[in-house]
């Protein structure tokens, strides 16, 4: 459904773009002095890059972009250099070629010319345009704005070190009311993992309050030897903290921006891909064996970002400037995949064509077997947590289209400023599409909690190829799930033994290995203990991720949990009293349902005519269920989750003793909703309930 929207947006933006093109030439159409000369060259300056745009020449196969340093009088102060090659596959809009020139020292002054080539035959250069590039952001005489990173002051000869990052971060924290820096965890070697929490005029005070603003999160640097995105994050944090630009104020007035500059501080310090134990952290976001990944997953649970980007660099020299990819794992709910695709192909491809950057699908030409469905990768883990998101790669080398990147500083600056462009665009997308992202997330959570459809242990959705020369003409491999990784008949829950749940493990850093129970808690999954067993029902928001860790068929699983299938389906008339663990799926119950002390009731796709009463139950987890009659839940010890219910009658949660938040998400209650005396206040995960009667107590705002 949402895929339709992608196409519509792309088309309407194209239409808008071509209308703009038609409208612009009113401002002096330049005639070509020589045959095949490029005309109407313009330059527009932005953070660390300059967008060249020109009128295309009929028959041109590509264009060369030349840059010459000049002084204030326009006199050259250095050699003219070909810095860019424009090729048709850079952008979706062939009629209006653009090229983002970057790599120069920001603030320097240049002259640019562009010429067409017919195969290798060079045509005459355009008349030149001259401009002073945008200096590093922030007035040097304004407190806060004057801060600079080590990377900026060293002209990209050095990356910002750990201690310099902490000093810069602390200075922003102190000088900006908009910023709170929180330590979300520590690395194996005890380096702090910091996160900027940025809002206007101040960030909300608690994680729950931040979550209520539907935040956007950027994970800047997981692979220690891919530091380009991290420098962009540090610069952007300064802009968000101090800019008076209405765009920034508007953005921060409507949401909260979360920036984690360095999840892998130990790897960054040693310039290694993995952390200090050699673990590739971007193969650990589901298993969270390491403290770094556990910190991130914990943060996601508490702050609930609804959209994200994950920064990397990529060694394929034939790739575009900015390979991107959505969460493709087939257990990711369709609306999350669609919205992520819309962000990449609807927004980034369009904006890339306007500003001269070249996004493309990860993999790209000659990309090999990358961009697949491993749930251990943050892109997929986040998708399975119902977060709209994308991977971001920065092409490591200049490649074939940026021939002036033999100089290391030029290469580093192009990468970092392309990341800065992407992150700024990401925040703009988030701001403009907040209602659509929230709706997609609500649909996704309802879908997951309904526990319908097959489970795939590993395998991807296809990324459609676009006709050449579209930037999307070389998508990553299909990566369909093999038959032995598909489970058509999903269980209701997984049962774990005491040993599986609390037993000592060996997978993790020496002396700091966590139990399955701790990792399940970090993910935020509800668990119900009945007798000696721990049940993890699938009718919860992360239904797509749970089996990957708890099923014996999971490719990289945590434990071989026992599949528990529904205990009751179909029609049943008469009172139902639940003792032990009961799972109702596709059932029709006529009569009162009573959940006894210490017992658990789990339902999906079920209709209950009669009251539901649970007093002192271990767990009550209902999803995609209709109840006629009151729903009264009190004294519950382990887990409460009510998602996508239709209740005719009052809903009452009182004196429950769970240590995790009861979920009341997207329900329709034709009657009053009352919550009182619960040890932990219920949450709606920022998905409203529809309640016709009064809402009272701890549920007053849900």
């Amino acid at each position, binding site marked *: 459904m949402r895929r339709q929207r992608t196409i519509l947006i792309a088309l309407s933006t194209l239409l808008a773009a071509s209308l703009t093109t038609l409208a612009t030439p009113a401002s002096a159409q330049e005639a070509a002095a020589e045959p095949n000369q490029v005309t109407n060259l313009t330059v527009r300056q932005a953070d660390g890059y300059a967008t060249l745009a020109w009128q295309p020449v009929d028959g041109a196969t590509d264009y060369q972009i030349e840059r010459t340093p000049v002084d204030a009088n326009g006199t050259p102060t250095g050699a003219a250099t070909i810095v860019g090659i424009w090729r048709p596959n850079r952008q979706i809009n062939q009629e209006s070629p653009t090229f983002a020139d970057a790599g120069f020292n920001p603030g320097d002054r240049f002259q640019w010319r562009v010429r067409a080539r017919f195969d290798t035959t060079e045509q005459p250069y355009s008349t030149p345009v001259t401009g002073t590039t945008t200096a590093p952001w922030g007035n040097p005489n304004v407190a806060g704005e004057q801060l600079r990173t080590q990377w900026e002051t060293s002209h990209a000869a*050095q990356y910002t070190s750990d*201690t310099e990052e902490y000093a810069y971060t*602390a200075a922003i924290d*102190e000088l900006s009311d908009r910023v709170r820096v929180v330590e979300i965890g520590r690395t194996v070697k005890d380096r702090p993992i910091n996160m900027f929490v940025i809002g206007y005029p101040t960030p909300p005070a608690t994680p729950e309050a931040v979550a209520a603003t539907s935040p956007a999160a950027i994970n800047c640097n997981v692979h220690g030897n891919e530091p380009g995105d991290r420098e962009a994050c540090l610069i952007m944090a300064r802009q968000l903290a101090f800019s008076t630009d209405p765009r920034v104020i508007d953005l921060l007035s409507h949401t909260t921006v979360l920036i984690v500059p360095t999840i892998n501080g130990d790897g960054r310090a*040693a310039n290694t891909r*993995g952390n200090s134990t050699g673990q*590739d952290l971007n193969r650990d976001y589901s298993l969270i064996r390491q403290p770094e990944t556990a910190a991130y997953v914990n943060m996601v649970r508490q702050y609930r970002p609804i959209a994200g980007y994950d920064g990397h660099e990529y*060694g394929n020299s034939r790739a575009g400037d900015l*390979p991107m990819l959505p969460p493709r794992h087939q257990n990711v709910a369709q609306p999350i995949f669609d919205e992520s695709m819309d962000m990449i192909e609807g927004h980034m491809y369009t904006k890339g064509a306007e500003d001269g950057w070249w996004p493309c699908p990860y993999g790209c030409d000659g990309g090999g077997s990358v961009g697949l469905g491993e749930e251990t990768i943050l892109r997929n883990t986040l998708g399975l947590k119902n977060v709209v998101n994308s991977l971001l790669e920065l092409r490591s080398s200049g490649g074939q289209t940026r021939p002036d990147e033999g100089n290391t500083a030029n290469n580093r600056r192009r990468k970092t400023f392309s990341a800065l462009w992407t992150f700024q665009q990401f925040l703009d997308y988030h701001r403009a599409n907040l209602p659509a992202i929230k709706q997609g997330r609500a649909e996704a959570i309802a879908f997951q909690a309904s526990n319908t459809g097959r489970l795939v242990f590993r395998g991807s959705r296809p990324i459609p190829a676009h006709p050449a020369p579209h930037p999307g003409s070389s998508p990553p491999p299909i990566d369909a799930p093999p038959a032995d990784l598909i489970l058509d008949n999903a269980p209701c829950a997984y049962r774990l033994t005491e040993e599986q749940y609390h037993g000592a493990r060996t997978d993790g850093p020496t002396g700091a290995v966590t139990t399955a129970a701790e990792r399940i808690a970090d993910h935020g999954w509800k668990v119900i203990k009945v007798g000696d067993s721990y049940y993890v029902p699938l009718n919860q928001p992360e239904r797509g991720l749970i089996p990957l860790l708890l099923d014996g068929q999971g490719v990289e699983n945590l434990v071989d949990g026992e599949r528990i299938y529904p205990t009751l389906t179909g029609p049943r008339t008469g009172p139902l009293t639940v003792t032990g663990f009961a799972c109702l799926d596709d059932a029709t119950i006529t009569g009162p349902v009573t959940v006894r002390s210490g017992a658990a009731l789990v339902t999906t796709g079920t209709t209950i005519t009669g009251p539901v009463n649970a007093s002192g139950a271990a767990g009550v987890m209902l999803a995609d269920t209709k109840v006629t009659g009151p729903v009264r839940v009190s004294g519950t010890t382990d887990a409460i989750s009510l998602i996508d219910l239709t209740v005719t009658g009052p809903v009452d949660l009182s004196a429950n003793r769970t240590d995790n938040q009861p979920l009341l998400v997207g329900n329709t209650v034709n009657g009053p909703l009352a919550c009182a005396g619960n040890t932990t206040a219920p949450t709606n995960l920022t998905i409203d309930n529809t309640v016709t009667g009064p809402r009272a107590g701890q549920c007053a705002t849900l």
Partner: protein
Amino acid sequence: MSYPRTRHPRRAGALLAAALLLTVTACTGDPHQPDTTPVAAQISGPLCAALPAGDEPGNPTYLAGQPVATALQWMPTLTTFEAALRTSGLLPDLEHDGITLLAPSDDAFATKFSDDTWDALMTKDQDKLRTLVKAHLIAGTHTLDELADDGTATTLDGATLTVTRTGDTTRFGDKADAVCGDYQATRARIHIINTVLGPLPTDAGGRDHRG
């Protein structure tokens, strides 16, 4: 190890943090200290164009007055070797005695080791890493000319390298060319080479295609 806390309860902390930042960036960022640059350093080789030059931060003349550890941190094509040297723990000894470093470029490491192999060396096999680093160190400070004149050099891992000169190019162990040579640092010479030395096998397959 301890790090600055990220939260400062008092407003005074703000000014302190800001001042600290400016101080730190000033002393790592200022390339224009005349009293630390006794001589103008002459470097040579095709890779020199990729590195800071003229009066840019990290230029060779500035580095000539710096300790070797600092100088290496200013050389953007040596991020892998710099981290390896630091991780190996060999650095403190080097800083007292004269030393010559044959420093493989990042590209050289990328064509030698896969990410996984490299991470294992850096995180799990300290002995192997030290041997690898020693294969790139020569006692005493030697210019490229001096090494070429000698014809052989003994590295700290005990191996003997042939040193040959063809045209302007100095080659070590019949395989590693100096691509930007004769950097100076305090009691040190640094020659950037384009191939990793030492006996470890090459296994760089697939490294280019993973982000």
